[in-house]
């Protein structure tokens, strides 16, 4: 098989692989912790979509920004957030990223450019656009990656924000993770176009349809869109076609999706696919793979231990930080 068209070194590719595995194992730990009632609130897992977050975030520089969604764990991990503090936040513990105030839908680490997940569908899209305006104001060459689901693209906020970004050529990359289902609503019945990327034409910006389960394809497209944004040529809309393996959230377990369809997408597992690519390039030996898996498992084990043993927040914390 031909070497994929990418400027990533072998080590960088192995890091993408590791990051995807870490996301998957983290989400498995979230599901298991929900079963044990260590996670009390809702949590939306990213299993099956790992290539999207990892492919995009690997095209960003350290001082770039991103905004995320209710299904945000993958974006955080791909950006290098600490899985210990993430899990502690999801458990509602004092050591979490938001001291337990945010929970699964509200993890942020601004020191790493992660401006926050969002409980409001479509809420992050104008925020990302505003962050790009902020980059423009400070005359930096930073770029903002804005993640959202296909369901969010029927909100007014999507259309308003993209138009705003387009008219000012703001440095933002809009990333739609089209996993084909918004809770119980299928993409075709809720959306008047066949592809979210088709909507880019309405705002005269480039639209890219990408196999969202192919991490290198996502990365390559992201590099192009990020370069364009950084050069001052304005936003792009990337549509990563992908799928979530689990039901909508740990609370919404009734799954309306046809089992055949779920099985079909599981067969396109982004991690297994990338493993195969790496193996075919002789970039990943069985021993290396085992070592990576072991290291990932150790990190997750450590995170579960950390979160489980972390203290509950002091009740007085509920009254703190209302105003800056």
């Amino acid at each position, binding site marked *: 098989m031909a070497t994929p068209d990418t400027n990533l070194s072998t080590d960088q590719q192995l890091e993408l692989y590791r990051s995807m595995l870490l996301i998957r194992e983290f989400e498995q730990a979230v599901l298991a912790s929900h079963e044990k009632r260590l996670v009390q609130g*809702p949590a939306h897992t990213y299993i099956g979509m790992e290539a999207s977050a990892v492919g995009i975030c690997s095209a960003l520089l350290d001082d770039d920004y991103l905004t995320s969604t209710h299904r945000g764990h993958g974006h955080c991990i791909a950006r290098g957030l600490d899985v210990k503090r993430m899990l502690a936040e999801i458990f509602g513990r004092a050591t979490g990223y938001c*001291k*337990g105030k945010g929970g699964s839908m*509200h993890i942020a680490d601004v020191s790493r450019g992660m401006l926050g997940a969002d409980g409001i569908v479509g809420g992050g899209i104008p925020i990302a656009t505003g962050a790009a305006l902020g980059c423009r104001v400070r005359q930096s060459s930073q770029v903002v990656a804005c993640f959202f689901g296909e*369901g969010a693209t*029927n*909100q007014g906020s999507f259309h308003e924000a993209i138009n705003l970004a387009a008219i000012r050529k703001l440095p933002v990359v809009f990333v739609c993770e089209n996993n084909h289902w*918004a809770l119980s609503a299928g993409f075709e019945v809720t959306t008047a176009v066949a592809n979210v990327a088709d909507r880019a034409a309405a705002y005269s910006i480039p639209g890219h349809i990408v196999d969202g389960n192919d991490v290198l394809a996502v990365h390559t497209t992201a590099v192009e869109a990020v370069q364009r944004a950084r050069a001052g040529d304005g936003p792009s809309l990337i549509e990563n076609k992908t799928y979530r393996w689990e039901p909508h959230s740990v609370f919404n377990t009734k799954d309306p999706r046809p089992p055949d369809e779920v099985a079909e997408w599981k067969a396109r597992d982004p991690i297994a696919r990338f493993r195969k690519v790496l193996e075919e390039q002789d970039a990943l030996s069985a021993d290396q793979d085992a070592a990576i898996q072991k290291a990932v498992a150790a990190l997750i084990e450590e995170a579960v231990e950390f979160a489980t043993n972390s203290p509950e927040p002091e009740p007085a*914390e509920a009254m703190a930080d209302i105003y800056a």
Partner: protein
Amino acid sequence: MREISYSDALREALQEEMSRDSEVLLIGEDIGTYGGAFGVTRGLLDRFGPDRVVETPISEGGFVGMAVGASLLGARPVVEIMFMDFMTLVVDPLVNQAAKLHYVYGEQAACPLVVRTPSGGGRSYGPTHSQVFEAWFAHTPGLKVVAPSTPADAKGLMKAAIRDNNPVLFVEHKMLYPTRGPVPGRGSRPIPIGKARIARRGTDVTIIAWSWLALEAEAAADALAVDGIDAEVIDMRTLSPLDMETVIESVQRTGRLVIADEAPRSGGVSADIGVRVFEQVFDYLDGPIRRVTTPDVPVPASPVLEQAALPNRERIAAAAAELCGAY
């Protein structure tokens, strides 16, 4: 009487009203086969078909505006907003449109529209899925706001809301859905909007609450009874228009008032009720009015923090006991 859940009672009301009046339709996200995020509309798509159970994309501002337009032509849409927190997205069509049209256009226009939505905390849903925004809408002339606590009231008030010729916000606390109680069957009558219900008679102190906290207030009254305090509990049921008559009559008898409200303390319905009592029967009060509310903070996700912020039966009982001089 048979006992059913709050969700089942709502579904019965929707189903009976849809059968009675072909202009009644449902609009919202995931309300079809899925049955709504909390299962209230389960089975109604099969029964009434996709023209009357209108599933929408995620576009709350758009489809509430659409419901306003349909109501202008005489349809009676019942819209589901999945969490009350998302009411932020539909303030314009409700406040600037639905609430104004009859006032401005007179006889030509009416908006017989219901917006149903689950409010409140208690399930660690976090700061954007736990809020109580009743006051914003009670503050808007032209809108009615109801927030029943029992399955029977949910059914009766839903029927009244659907038959009402005005826009009605129907608040369903998410903790209430599984709660059960006696509910009258087919053909039962609407319960009038604007009438409070005395949930428990008492002589020492009046406790006013609604929605989930009405249940907590009754539990508080049980606890107070053990200490020899005889509390009256009023379930407001409707927050706009307020039934001050029932409140005033009660306060005149008890001379003491506790108001429980899950919303933040400032600018809320609790303040409004309190000041009206003060305006009308100041001289009947034997002590200050006490409010038990969420402090002026968002609702945090962690169960420990959430419990620190939210009012509950213990805090209601403590306020009433203090007022009655029993510390």
